[in-house]
């Protein structure tokens, strides 16, 4: 019997020893939900790539306080049900301390109750303003609200005394939300919407709507949608010889839009995150350093330009890093530290969270850009 108890003690000691060793360099596990496949893969893929790139960089630099980060990524394929299952898996099986993502507003709204119940901080990469309005203690987000984009355009119009505006929005979630904001904020800037029309996401000809606008007394046109609809609108505007200034949403702030609309893109003005104009920004811009680092790194790793969507994931990981550097390591302490972050110049803007603001950005997160010679130019 003696041998047995001795071996028990030996095993026990060994276990303690290993436990001690592993806790010294134990990794911090963070979860990520991105729709790498499925219709929103244009969001999820750059997000996954960026998150992995940033985590690798942090680890190469020695981790956070000597502890490496471990990123567990699951693909939701844009499906809210799947997102909820995978969130539960991240929390119960992988025991992550925080979750980044999901990529879309629908998925985020589905996951939110789960992370709140389990008390795990969630940093969403989706844009819908209802994610953080009303504020939920455990939910943060990094993508800019469309409220801010609308404010940027209206401010510009107000300055130029263009107060009769026609809006043309796509009939999907993005367009509907933008339309709501456009209608809601117009009166605040003394703007009347003289035409309010829509087009289908797959429509191939918008001359009918634009003819109506041409016949109205509108002084400017705002088109709210994502590719390819707005490119058709741009071409149709040119075809009809409409000379009114044309504004677009941040939904088309990518080179793809210029490629699709071609000549017709010239002169269009749109609000955009700073990523696409990183090299044009003055050195005094608070975000310049982050932006240049991100854009160059992404290009180096993946051979394509970094975009806004990847930027949302960059911000999410870096915000987490900041919270962890403040000594947080449990979900609750991470949450508390996130809420205290202020003046963090990321990709999407300068973040400053507070107990009443979990979106953390102001309308300065957007700059107005104009398309000239198939490239972006800053407008002020």
């Amino acid at each position: 019997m003696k041998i047995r108890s001795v071996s028990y003690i030996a095993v026990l000691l060994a276990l303690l020893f290993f436990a001690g060793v592993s806790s010294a360099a134990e990794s911090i596990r963070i979860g990520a939900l991105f729709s790498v496949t499925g219709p929103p893969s244009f969001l999820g893929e750059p997000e996954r790539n960026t998150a992995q790139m940033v985590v690798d960089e942090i680890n190469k630099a020695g981790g956070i306080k000597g502890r490496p980060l471990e990123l567990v990524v699951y693909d939701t394929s844009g499906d809210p049900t799947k997102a909820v299952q995978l969130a539960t898996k991240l929390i119960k099986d992988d025991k992550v301390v925080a979750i980044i993502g999901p990529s879309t507003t629908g998925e985020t709204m589905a996951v939110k109750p789960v992370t709140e119940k389990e008390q795990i901080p969630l940093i969403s990469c989706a844009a819908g303003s209802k994610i953080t309005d009303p504020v939920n203690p455990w939910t943060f987000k990094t993508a800019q609200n469309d409220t801010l984009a609308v404010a940027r355009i209206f401010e510009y119009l107000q300055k130029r005394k263009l107060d009769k505006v026609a809006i043309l929005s796509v009939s999907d979630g993005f367009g509907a939300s933008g339309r709501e904001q456009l209608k809601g904020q117009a009166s605040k800037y003394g703007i009347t919407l003289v035409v309010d029309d829509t087009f289908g996401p797959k429509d191939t000809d918008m001359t009918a709507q634009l003819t109506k606008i041409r016949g109205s007394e509108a002084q400017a046109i705002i088109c709210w949608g994502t590719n390819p609809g707005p490119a058709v609108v741009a071409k149709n505007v040119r075809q009809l010889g409409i000379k009114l200034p044309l504004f677009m949403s941040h939904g088309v702030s990518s080179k793809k839009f210029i490629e699709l609309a071609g000549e017709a893109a010239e002169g269009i003005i749109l609000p955009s995150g700073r990523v696409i104009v990183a090299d044009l920004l003055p050195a005094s811009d608070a975000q310049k350093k982050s932006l240049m680092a991100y854009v160059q790194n992404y290009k180096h790793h993946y051979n394509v330009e970094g975009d806004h969507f990847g930027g949302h994931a960059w911000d999410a990981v870096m915000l987490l890093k900041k919270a962890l550097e403040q000594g947080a390591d449990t979900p609750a302490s991470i949450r508390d530290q996130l809420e205290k972050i202020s003046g963090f110049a990321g990709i999407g803007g300068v973040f400053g969270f507070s107990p009443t603001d979990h979106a953390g950005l102001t309308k300065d997160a957007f700059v107005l850009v104009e398309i000239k010679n198939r490239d972006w130019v800053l407008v002020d």
Partner: protein
Amino acid sequence: MDFSQQISQYILSGLATGAIYALIGLGFAIIYNSTGIINFAQGEFVMLGGMFGVYFHTVHNFNLAVALLLAILFAAVSGVLFERLAIRPLRRATPLGLVIITIGGSILVRGLAMLVWGKDTHALPTFSGDEPLSLAGATLLPQHMWIFALTVLLIVLSKLFFQFTITGKALRACAVNQRAAGLVGIDVRRMVMFSFLLASGMGALAGIIIAPLTMTSYDVGIMLGLKGFCAAIIGGMSNGLGTVLGGLILGVLEALGAGLISSGYKDAVTFIILLLILFLRPQGLFSRGESERV
């Protein structure tokens, strides 16, 4: 800008869109008449035309005319392959079974296109510039002229073909009665294959000439296919003028509906017309009876 100018813009835009629907609709009619099948994969050949066009022009840098011809050729060959692999082995299947197969085939083609070319939208350059032309108070692009011209040319050619060539007459014979056509020595199987070749080639042409205006991606085929189907139904599945008029009427009504009522109902207009025709005049607007399906 006054109201009459608006109306003329709606009508001209509608005619341009309608011409495309007509081309696609003709494809439906040609296959229906020689086989009795409604080929729901027709829209995918339109997509293939556009995507092959983009592929040859932007990836392989062929000039536009060459890319156009190659795209039509490749799409037509795909049409023949589709007939050989999916339709012919099942010649004894019921018409309903064949219709389901064409739906399955369309999903397959769409999926393959997505895997090969990705999910992005692509644009082709216009054939002759972007300077708008003014016409009766409305403005159109040179590309619209190409659409009108090519549609008219194709319709005239196909009319001549069906009236005056042996193959065309054989196709018409198959349309009237396949068994009798077989008895007088017409190779019905070859005619069926030929009808797929014609239909997919026409669809591909439609896909290419609209790609500069509307852009193209792997999933444009569904909606265009349905609109073309609707045009063919309005025209009573005729190989000629009926379907062309059906397409034009559809295009104009759509544009007027979007402009005067609400753009939200644009697609609804199409399908309400489709249902009304199917309920009230299943033989089409212009035909008097079953026998005039040529």
